[in-house]
């Protein structure tokens, strides 16, 4: 090969290497650290897991089907009982079969919405309370290091409450005749998702 050509290639190669070495990396600006990170982490945590999302929405849907007073009793009771489950997890009290319990919550709540089952208020609260404890035990304790525990808890509780709100608001379509059927269809979807989660938890 012509020495001049070889020299030219080497120069190009060296230039390319220098170019790659000096290429600026994309700047990943992130402001959500520390305190703000705790709140955003808590806020996004319930929304990031489909198992939690469908069960929370199903609580709202079922409350809408049951009407007064379950419509407001369930969303008032759920956060407190969920936090109670979280507290049990934090103080080290184990809860066997948490993942199965969470998957079952979607199956049972979905079935209740699908069947438009009307249970007495006390029984409805007990059913929801049992599942709330499982959800709190599994999800309420996942604080990342360096983040503010109180703001994480606040974000977690607010996001869960807002998911109930989505369920209740969506459940209002039952006032419209076809809407009641659509609502039952949504229950079937929740139940199917629960069965999928149950399959995943059992295997």
């Amino acid at each position, binding site marked *: 090969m012509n020495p001049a050509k070889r020299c030219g290639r080497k120069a190009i190669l060296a230039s390319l290497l220098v170019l790659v070495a000096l290429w600026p990396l994309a700047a990943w600006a992130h402001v959500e650290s520390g305190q703000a990170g705790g709140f955003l982490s808590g806020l996004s945590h319930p929304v990031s897991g489909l198992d939690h999302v469908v069960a929370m929405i199903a609580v709202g849907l079922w409350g809408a089907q049951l009407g007064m007073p379950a419509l407001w009793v369930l*969303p*008032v009771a759920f956060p*407190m009982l969920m936090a109670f489950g*979280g*507290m049990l997890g934090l103080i080290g009290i184990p809860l066997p079969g948490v993942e199965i319990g969470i998957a079952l919550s979607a199956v049972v709540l979905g079935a209740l919405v699908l069947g438009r089952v009307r249970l007495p208020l006390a029984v409805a609260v007990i059913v929801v309370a049992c599942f709330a404890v499982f959800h709190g035990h599994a999800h*309420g304790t996942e604080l990342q290091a360096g983040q503010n*525990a109180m703001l994480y*808890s*606040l974000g977690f509780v607010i996001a869960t409450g807002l998911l109930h709100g989505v369920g209740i608001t969506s459940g209002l379509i039952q006032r419209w005749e076809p809407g009641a059927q659509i609502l039952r269809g949504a229950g079937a979807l929740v139940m199917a998702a629960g069965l999928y989660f149950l399959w995943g938890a059992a295997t």
Partner: protein
Amino acid sequence: MKRLGLLPWLAAGLAALPGAAQAHLVNSGLGPFYDGALHLLLSPGDLLGLLALALLAGLRGTTAARAAVTALPTALLLAGLIGLTLPVIPNLAWLSTLAFMLLGVLVAFDVRLPPVIIAALAGVYGTLLGLLNGSTLATMDAGVGSLLGIVLTAFMLVLLASAAVVPLHAFWARITVRVAGSWVVAVGMLMLGWLAQGAV
């Protein structure tokens, strides 16, 4: 040439000495009053307690709200002045958590308390906040100016929040307030767990 001897080593040693940690209030750049105000606004536990107290007072009507709005800042100021003279109070996060949880329970269950009891609750909560904040301010070399910032901010927050709740008569609006109370309880329960775990 004159030899420096041990002098550079001494200087290097002094430079390497760890300084005492000087805890200080958040610096607003606007003076101690606003530093105090900002200190309260950046304390989520205190804010939750004040919010729950305002919701509770607001749910019980104008008389109860006026009683709370009077009792809270008075107690907060007096206890804060005492707190400024006290030695450092040990970390009582669990006590303030239990306090805002109790207020949240009263809101969530819409417990019908007379205005006198609401005023007493506001006074007790104000005393607790005052002692804790006053003692904290003393350790940060902050004084009465910062305490006044805390007191007036707490007063404004409770005044505005309770005034927003008092006119709510629609069933749904009152339920929303009770749901907010249940959220305060839920945060408190999780906080108790974190405190027991030692993560806070």
